[in-house]
């Protein structure tokens, strides 16, 4: 292997422009796929942050409702007590949730508005950068990103749910590329929606030692008209929305990245092989077997792709770090699944890119060594 590795490395390093084009092209193409994956994974993370950080082990919704976003759940208020009586339930907190628009001046932003009851033990915002974490009548907690964009501060009024509320706190870490999360009081929310005694979800904390899945099953069995899911299941359902929404886009962009990377590597390895056609002939004449030379080409393609992959990954990671330090509500999450997928892409690209050059090497006649070079 050392012979093939040496030749492949030296052949690559000999022409730095070609190496740069090859590795750069692969890096760029794979970065495209990695970054897109990371953006959607980031969006999924952001969308599920509230579910994961609200403190509930089990989420109880209207029967058939398995998501927080893009659906509406409506439960009679009496469900709260019924859920609280189920074995294994330690605490319950009802919340009301709706997708709405928060406005301040000309700025309008989509937000998931959560109505929190006074004294609830779950569902509160967990990272307040300014002001209060508790909302009373006529008050609201908004995302700091929205506040910055709209030019409002604690104490200013914003429009929400057809009325107005005073900002008492600014939160962070709950906004996504799509929307932010705002918190109002439970009573205000209900009043603004006509005062009907309904809630959206019941947040459940299970007793120590109890299994969330078992408690969820028990709730569904004992309380009619509800769907109960453990936090893990609820998060998985929520992520599925993002996956379903993004699958086509990711597939198309991945295919574009794949084709671009394949074309770049195939072309550069092909040109590199063409340029060294005579030297491959010399090696054949000296006794190198075809399979040895095929390995040289394959290692060359693999090295180009591997270096390109590492650079692409470094670039995407750097981009994620930089974005994380800005006020943009954009998170790039590089997942292991994405790394495996793009890594497999890269391996397939290397293999495919080597096919043409290998066919070329196979056709090289070792007797080429006796042909004179054209005079320079």
């Amino acid at each position, binding site marked *: 292997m050392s*012979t093939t590795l040496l030749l492949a490395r*030296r052949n690559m390093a000999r022409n730095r422009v070609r190496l740069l084009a090859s590795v750069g092209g692969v890096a760029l193409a794979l970065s495209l796929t990695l970054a897109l994956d990371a953006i959607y994974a980031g969006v999924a993370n952001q969308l599920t942050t509230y579910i994961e950080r609200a403190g509930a082990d089990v989420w109880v919704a209207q029967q058939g409702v398995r998501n927080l976003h893009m659906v509406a759940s409506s439960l009679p208020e009496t469900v709260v007590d019924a859920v609280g009586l189920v074995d294994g339930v330690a605490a319950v907190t009802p919340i009301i949730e709706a997708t709405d628009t928060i406005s301040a001046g000309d700025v309008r932003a989509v937000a998931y508005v959560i109505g929190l009851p006074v004294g609830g033990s779950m569902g509160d915002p967990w990272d307040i950068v300014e002001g209060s974490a508790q909302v009373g009548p006529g008050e609201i907690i908004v995302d700091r990103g929205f506040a910055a964009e709209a030019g409002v501060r604690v104490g200013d009024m914003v429009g929400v749910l057809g009325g107005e509320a005073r900002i008492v706190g600014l939160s962070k870490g709950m906004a996504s590329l799509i929307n932010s999360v705002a918190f109002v009081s439970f009573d205000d929310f209900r009043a603004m929606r006509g005062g009907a005694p309904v809630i959206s979800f019941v947040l459940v904390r299970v007793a120590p030692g109890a299994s969330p899945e078992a408690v969820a099953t028990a709730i569904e069995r004992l309380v009619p008209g509800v769907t109960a899911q453990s936090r893990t299941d609820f998060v998985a359902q929520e992520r599925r929305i993002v996956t379903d929404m993004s699958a086509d886009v990711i597939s198309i962009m991945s295919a574009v990245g794949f084709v671009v990377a394949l074309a770049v590597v195939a072309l550069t390895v092909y040109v590199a092989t063409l340029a060294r056609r005579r030297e491959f002939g010399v090696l054949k*004449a*000296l006794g190198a077997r075809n399979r040895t030379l095929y390995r040289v080409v394959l290692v060359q393609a693999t090295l180009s792709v591997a270096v390109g992959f590492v650079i692409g990954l470094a670039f995407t990671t750097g981009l994620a770090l930089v974005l994380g330090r800005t006020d943009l509500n954009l998170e790039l999450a590089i997942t292991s699944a994405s790394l495996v997928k793009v890594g497999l892409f890269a391996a397939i690209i290397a293999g495919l890119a080597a096919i043409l050059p290998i066919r070329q090497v196979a056709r090289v006649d070792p*007797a080429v060594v*006796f042909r004179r070079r054209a005079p320079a």
Partner: protein
Amino acid sequence: MTALTLDVRDVTKRFGDGETGVFAVRGVSLAVEPGEVVLIMGPSGSGKTTLLSMMGALLKPTAGSIHLDGSEISALSEGRLPDIRLRQFGFIFQDFNLLSALSVLENVAIVAELAGLNGRAARDKATALLRGLGLAERLDFLPEKLSGGEKQRVAIARALINDPTLILADEPTANLDSKIGHEIMRLLRTIAKDQGRSVVIVSHDQRIRDIADRVLWLEDGAFKDIVTMATDPVCGMAVERERAVSAVRDGETFFFCSRGCREEYLGGLRSGSARIGRGLAGWSRLPAVVLRSAQARMTTSTDSASRSRSRLGRFRNS
């Protein structure tokens, strides 16, 4: 009887079929003994390179057989030939054919590694060889940084690294100046005599005749009888003295391809504007001994005196 290193038996190579087919080599036979230096000369297109390619297992003969150390290599499958080329042959080329991306040391060591030697041992062996050839200071140089003579010495080291039985050299001095070319020639002869390796050289270079044990003339794909060659001083064509038109001037005889060239030469002398030297004027004063096609098997002694007389080759033409 000495065991032969190389035994070429009645070998023919034909390219193409039917009426368009061309015979590059016709029924050539040649036997090379261990430690012998054989020089094959001939005009361009005479089949020298085709013959060398067949001897080096790079090309299969259409008919006949080639034996190396008693084994018929021309009958081996393609899959077995790389091993033969790797371990039994050492190739030296006119263009050196060093791998441009590898250093001097790597160019030599890689061939040993291909033969199965591990990296360290291959490098040690290559280093020793290169030191022996005076390249100790050039081990890490790329080929592009070397002179022609140095490149050819690297190529010789590469040819020797796997201890081959036979060294095949294609115009080894063609890209070298006279002094370096002479050094390379002496080196090849030393390798043959000191290490007992056979050396077959294909060349146009008359200077190599000095180091060869035998000189063979290949023309139209077949070995020819020995004749004495000279160069027409007007057109540069190689001509057989015995058949050429001649003229004597200042006690020296000149040979011409035709009466026209002779008249032009003599007329030029009279008018003082002869195109003497249009061809290889210098070479015209160096008579060459070559072979005319023959059926007989001839043998010559390899001592220096007899070499300088004629160096007739052992060959068999069908």
